[in-house]
């Protein structure tokens, strides 16, 4: 039978805008450290002196024991998939990235399946949100071993990590 409909009259609208780019946001220098490491294929995490967790990318404070995470530790670029989700095939007109069509601007091939994953890199205690490349969606599973796919030209930027691929 389907959904019940609720039809209502529409009154005039008054239009307005709110420029969210007008804010003066402040950030920490932690990402600067992180991307400097990426240039040398190093994944940097912060080390908690309280609970010994290593968080990648680094954080200022430990969310559990609230200690300053001043220590640094380089973790492996190999890790384990702790979670994954699978997109349907992405065709032209299906998805928007910052208002642009990812197929049209060549970010994905027409009909490509995208697999976002959480990866726990060896030596870290956190999930890093990235994407699984060069894998058949049928083979992906929690516990799958993966390694970082580094960009051809490392520039010291977040884009240096293109994603991960099966080992």
């Amino acid at each position: 039978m389907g959904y019940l409909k609720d039809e209502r009259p529409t009154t005039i609208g008054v239009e307005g805008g709110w420029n969210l780019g007008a804010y003066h946001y402040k950030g920490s220098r932690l990402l600067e450290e992180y991307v400097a490491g990426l240039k040398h294929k190093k994944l940097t995490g912060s080390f908690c002196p309280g609970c010994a967790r290593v968080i990648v990318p680094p954080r200022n404070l430990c969310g559990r024991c609230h200690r300053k995470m001043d220590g640094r530790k380089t973790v492996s670029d190999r890790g384990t998939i702790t979670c994954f989700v699978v997109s349907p095939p992405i065709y032209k007109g299906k998805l928007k990235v910052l208002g642009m069509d990812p197929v049209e601007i060549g970010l994905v091939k027409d009909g490509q399946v995208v697999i976002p994953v959480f990866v726990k890199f060896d030596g870290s205690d956190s999930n890093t949100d990235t994407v699984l490349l060069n894998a058949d969606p049928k083979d992906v599973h929690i516990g799958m071993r993966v390694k970082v796919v580094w960009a051809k030209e490392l520039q010291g930027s977040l884009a240096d990590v293109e994603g991960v691929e099966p080992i």
Partner: protein
Amino acid sequence: MKRRNVAVIGCGQTKHSSRRRDVNVAEMVSEAVYNALEDAQVSAREVDAFVVGNMPGFGGVAQPEQWIAESLGAAGKPVLRIATGGTTGGSVGQGGYYVVASGLHDMVVAVAWEKHSDSKEAGATTGLLHVGLGNFFHAAGYGLSLKNLVATSVVGAAAGVAVYQAMFYMHRSGCGIEHFDMVAAKARRNAAKNKYAHLQWPGCTAEDIAKTDIVTYPFRYGHICPASDGASAIVVAEESLARKKAKQPAWFKGLASYTDEENQLQSENFGGVGVTDPSEQRGCWLSAVKAYRMAGIVDPKTEIDVAEIYQPFPSQELFFAERLGLFDEGTAWMALETGETEIEGRMPLDPSGGVNATNAIGSSAMQRILECALQIMGKAEEHQVPKKVRNALAHGWGGVTNYSTVTVLGDTPGR
């Protein structure tokens, strides 16, 4: 600590739908407030103060409480606005309890709302940008590329961290996508019995939901909550007023709200996330333990009669039910299979249809409290659970996906 006994004595809502463009936000919120006052049989004059809230940014009004106060009957009275993200309504409801239990006021109205259609973007996009944009700009400054963003957009299309939560829960409990179909179908079916709900589909079946396309596995379009316009309000009073005004007040017996580490995709400053399972929801578990202790509830499995769980996505009804102690770890989907969570089941979950059928974000967690009050007062009409309701459990979820509100309402104020 000395606390006064406090109860809900009246409930009011608006009809929820995608586009309440027949009214402005002040008129919409006022509709819920005056419905609640009528239900409680009190006049606006008798109300001492107002606790209000919606999500910051979502409706594009920076200080809505100042605009709408007069329309609510709040001019010249204390107005307190609370905003805690997705839990806003839960915090507003609990705020109503605090100001009365403390002795500050004797009778207050707590009201929460959202008007998504005042945003030009689809659904909750504008509001979510307000939440995540600072972090995004920060990462963009360090070379986050469009290519990196494809995965984020795929996840974003399926409501961000919720789709990961679903996968975590499937992996550790053994539940399948078909169980999400069943929860979503139940929500739409139940909503058809609730005249204020949004996505109403009489007799909806899991097969109907299974026919909808995958957004991002394991979520289908049929699993996703709507972006609703609407408001909900409760009248909250201290004991002597409550006994005078209501035949069966719905008493606040226990409540708590705990947070945990951030567990969105990335934490502040784009740092890593220490909670490796976002469906772990320690904040919910801590809130439940505290609220049960305050309410004198020892065994929630037998003492809670009905629960309204904050479940924009069907997976959340299942793992939150476990976090709230209503089912053993990893078993909620089995109870779903045997019909235990239906309106007439042993442990009805979201008889109103819940957030999965109606999501006016700021108001959603308030609706859980309101729906529990209706069940205790026996006023839930078509979706009233058939058994006697002594204790009802209202849950809210939000923050940076780490914050929960838990409220236990009962038919007696006793602990």
